[in-house]
């Protein structure tokens, strides 16, 4: 039985006087209204970015990967940096929807839908980079272990790059299933209150004929719980495997055992920053301040300062090990070519954005300040992009042979490709914000009577009665 009591000391998750119908109106309402001017502007900017990205990718496929500024020394540049950056961003969504579900963090209900959507779009963007990095992209299916006429020569199951194929595709599939199964009841809500035929038709198809039967809810709950249980190790494994792409190689600067936890923490760090960026705008434009409260943002800022500190510790550990390990190549990588050298500036951008600035979140006032949070979320994302750039490029550009030392700056198709993924991401997000319930309606209703502000006042009567009586009543309810 669901506990009916929650301490009045806890901040409400839903502000204002609400009942179930009001929740539906607030969250489904924007779907039924015409989008505002800002939506169109944003959507068309995203679409044009997407078009430019598509053109850049076309250019790369048509002329070959030589149009990128990669060279023999720096084989991975912006493409893999962007890949890791986007995958990392995705991790916050699964953390919110899965890990926080297992830890019974009530505040996840307000933000999980949008965060999961962000995960899916981010992973879609991430996937583009390794695929087009292949150069001859029409042979991308060679990464799949299918019986072929070349022997069959199978893929190398011992290779971290192949693990990545499995990890990213599994991650995408499971996130999509998790997200969509949660959307079914909410689509049914939109369907049943639809006033136009087209909406009724489309949401009818999308809702799979959901009716809200008790047995279905029972199975739905079981499904969500198990999917959360599966996603939890999955999300940790995905970035672990991404870090294996580097850690299993013998490049100084990559070959370290702290990579998996360091990458996972970094992924969650950047992912939460992106959730903040998106939700601060979404809550404002869709007037969802009652559901995505300052309390939600504070909770996420706490995660940011925690994971940011883990990342900071990892940076210092790397520096320490480079000195303590007494390997001259590793020492040089860190102290001569990363913290100094021609690309040294990127290292210090990373340090400033990821380690120094997030420390403002030790102060409650800062955590609860929307403007500070928004600016910080952008800074963190810039910092985390540079982290990947630093790891990839500053480890590569000074290799064992000084004659092949090189420098790297991207060419326009590389930049265009990156901008194009922003286009893809935001096009998807704009469509999501317009046509999908941005907040999990059913889940909000589920917590409304314990965590809603207007219901919190009734909790005082429980606080006055003895604990024994309360425990007895809960145990014998129904």
């Amino acid at each position, binding site marked *: 039985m669901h506990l009916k009591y929650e301490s009045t000391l806890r901040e409400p998750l839903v502000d204002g006087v609400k009942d179930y119908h009001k929740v*539906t109106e607030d969250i489904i309402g924007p779907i039924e209204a015409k989008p505002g001017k800002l939506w169109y502007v944003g959507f068309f900017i995203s679409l044009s970015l997407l078009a430019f990205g598509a053109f850049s990718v076309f250019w790369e496929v048509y002329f070959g990967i030589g149009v990128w500024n990669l060279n023999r020394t720096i084989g991975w540049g912006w493409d893999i940096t962007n890949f890791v950056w986007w995958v990392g961003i995705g991790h916050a969504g699964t953390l919110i929807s899965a890990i926080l579900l297992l830890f019974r963090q009530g505040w996840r209900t307000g933000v999980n839908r949008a965060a999961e959507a962000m995960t899916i779009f981010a992973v879609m963007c991430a996937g583009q980079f390794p695929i087009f990095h292949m150069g001859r992209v029409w042979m991308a299916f060679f990464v799949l272990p299918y019986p072929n006429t070349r022997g069959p020569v199978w893929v190398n199951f*011992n290779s971290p790059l192949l693990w990545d194929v499995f990890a990213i595709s599994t991650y995408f599939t499971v996130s999509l299933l998790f997200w969509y199964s949660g959307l079914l009841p909410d689509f049914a809500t939109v369907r049943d209150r639809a006033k136009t035929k087209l909406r009724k038709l489309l949401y009818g198809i999308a809702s799979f004929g959901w009716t809200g039967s008790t047995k279905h809810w029972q199975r739905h709950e079981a499904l969500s719980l198990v999917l959360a249980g599966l996603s939890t190790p999955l999300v940790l494994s995905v970035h672990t495997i991404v870090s294996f792409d580097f850690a299993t190689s013998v490049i100084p600067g990559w070959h370290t055992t702290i990579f998996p936890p360091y990458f996972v923490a970094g992924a969650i760090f950047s992912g939460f920053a992106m959730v903040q960026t998106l939700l601060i705008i979404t809550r404002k434009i869709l007037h969802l301040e009652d559901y995505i409260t300052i309390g939600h943002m504070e909770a996420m800022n706490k995660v940011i300062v925690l994971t940011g500190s883990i990342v900071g510790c990892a940076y210092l550990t790397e520096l320490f090990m480079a000195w303590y390990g007494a390997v001259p190549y590793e020492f040089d990588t860190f102290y001569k070519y990363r913290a100094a050298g021609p690309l040294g500036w990127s290292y210090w951008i990373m340090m400033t954005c990821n380690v120094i600035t997030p420390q403002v979140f030790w102060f409650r006032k800062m955590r609860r300040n929307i403007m500070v949070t928004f600016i910080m979320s952008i800074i963190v994302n810039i910092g985390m992009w540079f982290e990947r750039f630093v790891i990839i490029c500053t480890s590569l550009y000074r290799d064992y042979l000084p004659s092949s030392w090189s420098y790297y700056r991207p060419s326009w198709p590389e930049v265009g490709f990156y901008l194009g993924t922003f286009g893809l991401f935001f096009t998807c997000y704009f469509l999501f914000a317009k046509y999908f319930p941005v907040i999990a309606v059913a889940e909000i209703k589920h917590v409304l009577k314990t965590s809603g502000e207007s219901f919190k006042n009734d909790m005082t009567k429980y606080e006055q009665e003895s604990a024994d009586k309360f425990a007895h009543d809960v145990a014998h309810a129904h």
Partner: protein
Amino acid sequence: MAAKKFVVGCFDDEAVLFPAVKKVRAAGYKIHDVYTPFPVHGLDHAMGLRETSLHTAGFIYGITGTTTALSFMSWVFTTDWPMNIGGKPHFSLPAFIPITFELTVLFSAVGMVLTFCYLCQLAPFVKKHVFHPRQTDDKFVMAIEVTGKTGADELKNFLTAAGAHEVHEQTAETGWWLGRFDREDRLFNEQPAPLNA
């Protein structure tokens, strides 16, 4: 599929619904189903539904994935096309762990979702009867089948006494059919037509 006659009671609050479910069951009426806008914990027990075995199915799909991945990779690297990769052993179990794990999760998740959709009979273009348009919004809707022995009027009064704020009779298909929700459904803002009056 057969059209059956139901008495439908709508409740405003889950706190009223629970005792009502108890009373209805105690009185010997057969609850067809209760439709709620969100999962009401404990309602399944109150209605006497058994626990779902979906978890077990998920576990079975999971170990199927584990076995598939492990046996396939071992077969490829030891039997079908043994490759010398830096002199490492052909059967390199530690290197198989990541893919084995991913396939375990993938099989389990995909299998469970498909099983969920099969058990609940959910799919695109599937249509089911919606007893009340607000059962996915804010109403808790109890449908009780009217059989030869059930007195419909008596049952209506019973439900009203149990706290239902709206009670009516409906004839409805019990199963699903392929259909569109924009056809032959009354829209939300229209008044309900008199049903079998």
